[in-house]
């Protein structure tokens, strides 16, 4: 009977769409949209690069924005020759590195405690951490001003107009979000792993440093990238809290020193922005390898 059914099947063949054809179409659409995205997102940096290689004469002549007829490195030379730009760069780098370190120290331990050590109110606290992140930073700088004024009045310590003040401020933006994403990542790590460490004789701190952090590296790196990007690109707070030229960070520095009244030094602005984008790019490229490594494989069945 089975043979008869098969025979009947071959008599009237059913048309199946081939798997490889389906896949081919899926690939075509993916490429189409990916190319669209790439064009959309890479055009501005390309424009910056082209403009940075032009002399101010060529920029103001506005012949063809997409082509350099007379390429020059004068913008780079001038910008890097100014001590000012290097100070902005140093300020930005110091602030970002310190913020990343502070954020990670707080977030990793906080996320570990909130994700793992079940204690009274831990769930509410975890929720509270996330809610903090939902408050827009534009609403925070007036209260922060008030707080800084209070600190000055009571202790005499002036927090305004110092680049290192930003190291205190930025974690208010980075810590809640980093803690939140790491709670999520930590929750995906099997709890037997730290339980095994506790039974093997580890304290909570040893379980965290010797077992948990090495396993959670991909999540920690994702948070690091976030914290670095946020503090490197932050514009509003440094604009509000720093004014002296030697205290400025890169994004604010470029805008305030290279735009004089209604004179825009486009060549140097573009150059400065392009050079300023380099550190995050290098960090992404370097950390992505670790990020993809996927260290949890093989810990448990599955």
């Amino acid at each position: 009977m089975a043979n008869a059914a098969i025979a009947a099947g071959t008599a009237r063949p059913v048309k199946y769409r081939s798997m490889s054809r389906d896949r081919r179409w899926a690939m075509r659409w993916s490429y189409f949209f990916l190319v669209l995205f790439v064009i959309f997102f890479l055009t501005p940096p390309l424009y910056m690069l082209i403009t940075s290689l032009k002399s101010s004469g060529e920029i103001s002549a506005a012949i063809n924005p997409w082509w350099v007829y007379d390429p020059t490195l004068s913008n780079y030379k001038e910008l890097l020759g100014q001590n000012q730009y290097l100070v902005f760069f140093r300020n930005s780098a110091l602030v970002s590195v310190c913020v990343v370190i502070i954020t990670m120290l707080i977030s990793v331990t906080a996320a570990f405690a909130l994700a793992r050590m079940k204690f009274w109110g831990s769930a509410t606290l975890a929720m509270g951490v996330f809610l903090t992140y939902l408050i827009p930073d534009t609403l925070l700088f007036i209260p922060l001003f008030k707080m800084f004024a209070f600190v000055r009045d009571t202790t005499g310590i002036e927090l305004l107009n110092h680049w290192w003040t930003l190291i205190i401020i930025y974690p208010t933006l980075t810590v809640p979000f980093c803690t939140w994403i790491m709670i999520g990542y930590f929750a995906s790590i099997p709890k037997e792993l730290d339980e095994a460490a506790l039974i093997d004789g580890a304290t909570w701190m040893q379980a965290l440093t010797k077992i948990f952090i090495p396993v959670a590296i991909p999540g920690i790196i994702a948070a690091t990238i976030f914290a670095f990007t946020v503090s490197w690109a932050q514009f509003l707070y440094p604009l509000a809290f720093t004014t002296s030229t030697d205290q400025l960070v890169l994004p604010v520095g470029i805008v305030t020193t290279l735009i004089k009244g209604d004179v825009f030094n486009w060549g140097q602005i573009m150059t400065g922005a392009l050079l300023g984008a380099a550190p995050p790019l290098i960090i992404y490229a370097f950390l992505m390898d670790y990020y993809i490594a996927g260290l949890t494989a093989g810990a448990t069945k599955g």
Partner: protein
Amino acid sequence: MAQVTLRKVVKKYDEVLAVRGIDLDITDKEFIVLVGPSGCGKSTTLRMIAGLEEISDGDIAIGGDVVNDVPPKDRDIAMVFQNYALYPHMNVYENMSFGLKLKRTPRAEIERRVKQAAQILDITDLLDRKPKQLSGGQRQRVAMGRAIVRDPKVFLFDEPLSNLDAKLRVQMRTEIKKVHQKVRTTTVYVTHDQVEAMTLADRVVVMNAGLIEQVGSPNDLYHTPTTKFVAGFIGSPAMNFIPCQLEQAAGALRMRLNDKLSMPVPASRTKRYSSFAGKPNLVLGLRPEHITETRPHTEPDQHDFDMAIDVVEPMGMETLVYFTINAAEICGRVNPNAGAAAGQPMKLRADLSNMHLIDDTTGKVL
């Protein structure tokens, strides 16, 4: 000496009682298996012994010391988890030596112990591999190795074989038994698989709904269960339960299964059961191997009867036959050559010397 004692141990999760006051004495070097259906509290009990769960009430003592508030690291125990929980960033050697390193054991001593454990478990070749390069069975061995090197007072196993395929499970079961015979450490082993429980345990603890139903050697539990739950839980295929009435007729006690079928109570049990004559809710418990085909030689207390067979399942060494009495599906184990056929009547024999009479109201075996 490492006996483990549980006294009136209770575990409450917000108003839900997971463990409802259990008492248990585990003697030194004993292999105890906690077995029961999922949600019976067996894993919770194990985790309380490990210190991974706080106890809500009662006392747990390891080696005579009450450890209620002692953190896991100071209890001197080792645990093997269901999903192995190997440290993924360390190789096998580092995994096994982690606990010893934390205790600042001298290097040479660590090496000696790891080598020795590796030898016992036959994983000497795997010492520099990472967990992800190991098969399920190998990971299981490493997890056991990590426990053995510590030379703890107590081994705790939490369903260690559940993630392995059927063949490997049987193999690792034997392996665990061998290891225990070599290292003789007090062991508490949790499983939901009654075959695992029977084969491994010195004593089996059957748990149900947060309470201990019965504690005993595998044979005790099998042959003299004290409750209907234990009678039904231990043994595969499970014990048959047939609703019946006990009637006193002409000085003899008989069990009436339905209008047509009644069986005599063995003479040795008459005295034990006579007071239950006429009582409602009685159940006859009889294991499948005590319902067979008729044989030429008759022992006392065997009763032959005719029955129409519903389903026949050949197993090779035996054939399972299913039939219905009193709306209860009954299983018997007959010789493959006895000629059982679905829909056909068959002469069967019940060996009543192995019967159990159960009061279904209290769930107790009478």
